[in-house]
């Protein structure tokens, strides 16, 4: 891959970071403050899109390297997978920001300045995770991400919330330390630890050491990805304001974790090394278990946002699953699922937040009648729910279809069955929400759609999801990016894995 | 060798007293004993059989074997000063502690601090 040294990756990462200070300083003028947020979002998106043509041409923008540690510089590189995640996060950041404006104002939440500042920093960190060129940079961005999302999680500042915040930090920071240990170790084995399609660790150490390293790294990134049994913090973190949850799930934390798992399987170890070490199947089984377990937990959950949270746990394990299988189509499906899940889940969270903002209701059993009072919101919700379940013409279908094909390439038929079962489970826990909201009679006639600030973002996200489902390669070329990321990995994979490469 | 052993004994006595005696003033006495032990050790290192004090007499070029080694003596002058300095400062602290806490007994003092 040809590399273009440029400052654009730095711009993409720095936009959010640079916005923090102005946001903090303009705390007394909300319009200006939010203006900074939108400006930063637009800059980040612009930077991302400006790097797209190079990626289409098979090249990558690379930032100048800042030497931090021997052989381990701080460096950003816009390879297809990173660019995919970056573009997604900047689009969804803009959407979430506009939603946050309406949400915070309609609920009259305090500490809005700190909220927007931390938000900007968190998105910058997510961009850093996306574009990290090596493990060190990834680790740094990852830790910053943890810390900048903590204020968002404890935004309500009640004692229960602090408990959740501590649980969040306990999981993520402990994992972060393990990740640090693993990164140091990798740095000793393979100087530079630069993400390489197809992995760079083959032959760097004995099999046992590599397995230990894999477990350490997996725990490090997997706890953010909420892989079972490290998912405990995610439902607890639902105490955060809804836009935060949306950010956590669709863009920043959980998604960064899933992204990290993909990087780990495809760019650090590589599919063939994982096969050789016998790690693929256990990881796939872990992902499968997580999918089923989380779906079942979601079925029994009445709290609206927490049901969505379990859904996230389940859905993100598709990405892990794709990384574990490692065939090109599976990887492409997994990468595309980052995008698909991002748009769909943010729609769902926006809807949940709108319901809360309009009625103060947080439980599914209280939703009766709201479907008619809030038609736009629930229409968007329906799109999100069906897309999650894998309905054709919606983006979730594309990722799952490719996952299934990829699994078949590796002769793992059970994955197809798993996908079907989990799709059914998805329907089983999403459809009742729609049923209650639309068909059960409501008790409160005064409920109306909330302000346009709260209606437009979910509708926009739902529409975007539909477009993405119909034309996955339009606009930001998400499908192309996912596919070329997968292909770059596959190019380094042995023959038996390359079947089905388009 | 016996001389060295006496220095070691004084040193152990001093440092043991510092650790174990309950009275702060007594601890300081022990501290001084410990410091003197080191001085005794160094001075015994300077001793040479058949040599005299390291002060040049009249006439003749000095021979190394005729005079005690002056270097340890010099060092020990400094060490004595260090000893008296730390003792002086410690006594100052002691007076201050005594006036504030009305005891010089370590355990009572710690009880009072609790």
């Amino acid at each position, binding site marked *: 891959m040809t590399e273009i040294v440029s400052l654009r990756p730095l711009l993409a990462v720095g936009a959010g970071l640079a916005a923090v200070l102005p946001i903090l300083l303009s705390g007394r003028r909300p319009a200006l403050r939010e203006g900074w947020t939108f400006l930063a979002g637009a800059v980040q998106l612009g930077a991302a899109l400006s790097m797209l043509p190079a990626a289409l041409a098979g090249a990558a923008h690379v930032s100048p390297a800042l030497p931090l540690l021997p052989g381990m510089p701080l460096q950003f590189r816009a390879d297809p997978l990173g660019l995919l995640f970056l573009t997604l996060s900047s689009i969804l950041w803009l959407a979430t920001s506009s939603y946050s404006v309406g949400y915070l104002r309609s609920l009259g939440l305090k500490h809005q300045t700190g909220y927007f500042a931390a938000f900007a920093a968190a998105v910058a960190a997510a961009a850093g995770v996306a574009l990290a060129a090596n493990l060190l940079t990834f680790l740094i961005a990852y830790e910053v991400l943890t810390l900048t999302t903590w204020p968002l999680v404890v935004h309500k500042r009640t004692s229960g919330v602090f408990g959740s915040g501590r649980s969040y930090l306990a999981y993520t920071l402990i994992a972060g330390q393990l990740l640090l240990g693993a990164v140091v170790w990798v740095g000793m084995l393979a100087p530079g630890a630069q993400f390489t399609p197809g992995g760079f660790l083959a032959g760097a150490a004995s099999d046992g050491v590599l397995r230990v390293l894999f477990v350490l790294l997996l725990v490090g990134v997997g706890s953010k990805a909420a892989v079972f049994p490290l998912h405990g913090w995610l439902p607890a973190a639902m105490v955060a304001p809804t836009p935060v949850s949306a950010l956590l799930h669709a863009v920043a934390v959980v998604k960064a974790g899933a992204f990290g798992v993909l990087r780990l399987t495809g760019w650090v170890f590589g599919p063939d090394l994982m096969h050789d070490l016998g790690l693929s199947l256990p990881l796939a089984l872990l992902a499968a278990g997580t999918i089923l377990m989380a779906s079942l937990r979601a079925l029994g959950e009445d709290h609206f946002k927490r049901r969505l949270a379990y859904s996230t746990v389940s859905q993100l394990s598709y990405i892990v699953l794709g990384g574990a299988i490692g065939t090109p189509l599976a990887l492409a499906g997994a990468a595309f699922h980052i995008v698909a899940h991002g748009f769909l889940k943010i729609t769902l969270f926006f809807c949940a937040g709108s319901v809360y903002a309009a009625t103060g209701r947080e439980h599914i059993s209280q939703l009766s009648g709201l479907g008619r009072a809030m038609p736009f919101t629930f229409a968007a919700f329906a799109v999100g729910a069906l897309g999650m379940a894998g309905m054709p013409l919606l983006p979730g279908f594309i990722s799952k279809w490719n996952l299934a094909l990829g699994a078949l390439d590796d002769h793992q038929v059970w994955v197809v069955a798993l996908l079907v079962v989990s799709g059914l489970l998805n329907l089983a826990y999403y459809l009742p929400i729609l049923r209650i909201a639309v068909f059960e009679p409501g008790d409160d006639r005064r409920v109306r759609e909330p302000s346009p600030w709260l209606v437009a973002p979910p509708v926009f996200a739902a529409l975007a999801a539909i477009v993405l489902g119909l034309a996955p390669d339009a606009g930001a070329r998400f499908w192309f990016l996912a596919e070329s990321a997968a292909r770059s990995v596959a190019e380094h994979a042995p023959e038996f894995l390359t079947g089905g490469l388009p | 060798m*016996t*001389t060295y052993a*006496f220095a070691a*004994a*004084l040193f152990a*006595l*001093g440092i043991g*007293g510092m650790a174990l*005696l309950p*009275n702060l*003033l*007594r601890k*300081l*006495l*022990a501290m*001084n*004993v410990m410091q*003197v032990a080191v*001085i*005794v050790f160094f*001075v*015994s290192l*300077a*001793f040479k*059989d058949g*040599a*005299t*004090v*390291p*002060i040049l007499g009249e006439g003749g070029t000095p021979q190394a074997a005729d005079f*005690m080694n002056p270097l340890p*003596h010099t060092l*020990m*002058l400094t060490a*004595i*000063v260090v*000893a*008296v300095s730390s*003792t*002086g400062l410690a*006594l100052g602290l*002691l*007076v201050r502690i*005594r006036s504030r806490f009305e*005891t*010089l*007994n370590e355990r*009572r003092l710690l009880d009072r601090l609790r």
Partner: protein
Amino acid sequence: MTEGHLVSIGLLAVMLISAGCALAVKDLLTAAALFGVFSFLTATWFALMGAPDVAFTEACVGGALTTILFVSTAFRTGRRFD
């Protein structure tokens, strides 16, 4: 072993005993005084060892100054075992 060595070792033994006594006696003022004795013995031993400078200094400092400081502190803080 020469006669000088024997004197030296005897002196060292007395030094050790006086140091032990200084740490052991109950009355702080007596302890300080015994410490003065110890210092003068030490100074004598230094002189015996051919170190007149050290002996002189030890006599000035250990025997006189330190002892005076100890005694006046003992005066101020109460001489009894505390």
